[in-house]
């Protein structure tokens, strides 16, 4: 007689967690894209361990709003942009969608730029790396099923371990790092406020917020999964912060120590690491950039496609065929092709695209957070999951913080 072994409760729980896991980890880690790594590198290179607390605050904000986004997605079965249209009207929905498309296009260009720059560290031309990347992510989304795509996203996420390795190889001053994390101090100058705002903005990105909600809808997660999904979101957001931490301490221990503070992109940080922490550290850091860019470059067009479909109310699911969801796939293709094309133009200066997409992201972040705040307290939409007083105070506090950062950054931009 065959004996059936019924898995123990613990095993089952882990199994259930793994089945639900994905949205939080993927959305979180894709915030650590090349632009994010650049920002963290700058923070570490310019200010050492001193501003690590900014990352802690950003991570908390990320946890809180990703958690809210996941909850809204599961409870309402609708993406963020669709809900904005429903609750705040056609113009609000369209404004958010158009701003998101433009900002995502800019960010996507930045991801390709990241791939190109990191490829050049290994001596590979951008005319190879960029088309290959575009081909890879299109094939992933167009050919694969939801499950397959998610698996690849996970494998890409594993690349982030390289930052932890690089962090240890740089022998940071752990005591100073912990001090910087828990004791807030803020030098009152333009650079410090700029980098603090950029850190908050790159961690809590609009497309990430839109993505987690739509992805939870596409994954057909239900209220029964909500507990596990929240665990997933917390783990994913915390990992995002941990990766950021290691990037900052790597740069603090090496670049800041040697007073190399003028870092303008992540690959430059990798190159600067070479004489200080060895060729291996440089290579590991560069591989991390490529993995980060690939993950974010897969998620960004996906997030955009979800949002556009959501606005129009047309179907959007990774398991749909092209003729079932043409708008979804066309948006995906358009974002990928246009961003890839921009990078390929010989001698093009991308700096204005990158800066304007960052500004657009900052402009967009505030209303999106405010819309989420409004949705979270809407009893008609959220039912028993409507936000309580304490949650609303927390959301409000984070929105106020973001508002202060965004406004002060604008103040600096227009007072150049």
């Amino acid at each position, binding site marked *: 007689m*065959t004996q059936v072994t*019924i898995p123990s409760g613990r095993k089952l729980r882990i*199994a259930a967690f793994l089945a639900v896991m994905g949205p939080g980890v993927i959305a979180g880690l894709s915030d650590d894209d090349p632009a994010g790594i650049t920002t963290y590198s700058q923070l570490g290179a310019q200010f050492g361990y001193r501003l690590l607390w900014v990352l802690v605050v950003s991570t908390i904000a990320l946890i809180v709003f990703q958690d809210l986004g996941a909850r809204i997605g599961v409870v309402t*079965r609708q993406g963020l942009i669709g809900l904005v249209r*429903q609750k705040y009207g*056609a*113009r609000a929905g369209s404004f958010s969608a158009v701003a998101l498309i433009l900002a995502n296009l800019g960010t996507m260009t930045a991801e390709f730029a990241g791939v190109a720059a990191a490829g050049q560290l290994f001596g590979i031309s951008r005319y190879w790396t960029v088309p290959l990347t575009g081909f890879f992510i299109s094939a992933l989304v167009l050919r694969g099923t939801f499950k397959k795509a998610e698996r690849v996203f996970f494998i890409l996420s594993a690349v982030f371990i390289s930052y932890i390795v690089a962090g240890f190889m740089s022998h940071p001053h752990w005591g100073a790092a912990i001090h910087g994390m828990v004791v807030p101090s803020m030098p009152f100058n333009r650079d410090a406020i700029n980098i603090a705002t950029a850190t908050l903005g790159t961690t809590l990105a609009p497309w990430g917020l839109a993505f987690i909600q739509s992805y939870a809808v596409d994954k*057909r997660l*239900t209220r*029964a999964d909500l507990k596990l999904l929240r665990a997933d979101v917390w783990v994913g957001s915390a990992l995002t912060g941990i990766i950021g931490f290691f990037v900052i301490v790597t740069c603090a221990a090496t670049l800041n120590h040697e007073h190399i503070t003028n870092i303008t992109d992540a690959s430059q940080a990798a190159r600067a690491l070479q004489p200080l922490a060895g060729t291996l550290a440089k290579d590991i850091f560069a591989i991390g950039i490529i993995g980060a860019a690939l993950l974010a470059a897969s998620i960004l067009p996906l997030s955009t496609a979800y949002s556009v479909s959501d606005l129009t109310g047309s179907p959007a699911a990774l398991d749909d065929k092209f003729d079932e969801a043409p708008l979804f796939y066309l948006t995906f293709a358009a974002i990928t092709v246009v961003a890839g094309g921009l990078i390929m133009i010989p001698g093009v200066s991308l700096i204005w695209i990158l800066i304007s997409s960052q500004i657009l992201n900052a402009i967009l972040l505030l209303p999106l957070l405010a819309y989420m705040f409004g949705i979270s307290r809407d009893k008609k939409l959220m039912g028993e999951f409507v936000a309580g007083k304490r949650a609303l105070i927390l959301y409000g506090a984070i929105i106020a913080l973001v508002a202060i950062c965004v406004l002060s950054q604008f103040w600096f931009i227009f007072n150049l």
Partner: protein
Amino acid sequence: MKRPPVASINTVAKRLVGRSDLLISRKSVRDSLVSLAGLIGRPVVDPDGREIGRLVDVVVRHGEETYPPVTGLIVKVANRKSFINGARISQLTPSSITLSSTKINLEPFSRRPGESLLDADVLDHQIVDVDGLRVVRTSDLYLAPFNKEVRVVGVDISFVSFLRRLFPGSLSRRPTPDHVIDWASVASLMDSHGVVRTSGTRSALSQLRPADLADLIEDLAGREQGALIEMLDPDLAADALEEMEDDELEGLLRGLSAERSAELLSRMEPDESAEVLRDLDDEHRESILNAMESATAKQLRQLVSFDEEVAGGIMTTHILVVKSTVTVADALQLLVENRERESSDGVLVVDSKGKLLDHIQTVELIAVDPQSLVSELIAKPFPTAVTIDTPIEEVVEEFSNNRGSSIIVIDEKNKPIGRILADDLVDALSKNRGRFSQSGVTRS
């Protein structure tokens, strides 16, 4: 059901467009269409043309009439929202509403049963497109005077109309009748009592395959899900529920009343219901079981108590049992009475003590004289039977040895208590495989 009346779901059946009795097809109506989206925020004026306030929302009543009449306007007067009775409307144009008298009662608005707010509850909300089998969004609604009242006559789900609304000024108010779907082909379920029962759309819904319906239900969230279920014929709803994913179903039941859940679960195949009930928490399960007829509840309680990994946990208890002493005609009669059930492909014959003797196919019964006794048909091959606690693996073995379409489950006294059909086994196995492969946990 005690949920507050609220607008929640509308259903569009485009295949009904083209019916000649539709209002939209009348020229007088087509020419007087007013876009709701364009009207919101426009002035409400008295007969002398003086502005009273700005339109905030339009209140309609859903009832017997196909085209819901406007019962009132919500108007912002001096920064306060007030209600104006719909009977006061004398003229409706795309850019303004004129009232019939200068004396106006401004009352505070409170929603009466069966009423909904067009802007707050319907516009830009999700509706079910039965024809396209998907969930879409309302781009616009159209009002027109008809039968002495202003009524909702059409709905628009096109993206073009959505874009039109983004334009400033009068461009945003121009109707685009080509994209309008007549309200008669829209069933809108405005509260949990299902006030609107447009026959056309209910039948359009009932023509859907249960699996498609299950997909539609899964695409909607809590309140809308409940509303769609309420709208369906209970048997069809039960069929659709059987097609839903376990997690989805669990979430859905949480949103329904215990009575409604009980009704639906009673109509599902017992093994499917038991599987759902098993996953619920104790309190919720008991409240549903208590709302059922006691016989059904008792049967389900027993099924729920079995482990999913053994025969008892996956069997259906719906079996047709006859004593060997009855006539073939009686057995056939029983089959006819239960023809709706999937397990009605034959009868189980038992002796006077209720012990299993044989499984006799319908074909065998038809082939003989109706007045002969069932006992005469008992012959080899005898059916395969397993006990309640037989592990699934062994059930599979039995199936592959015998190549039958079902296996009978007996208790320790040899009495038949259920059957396992091949599809139950497929469900049980695929469910396990899905769960274990994702986690990498293997079974030894």
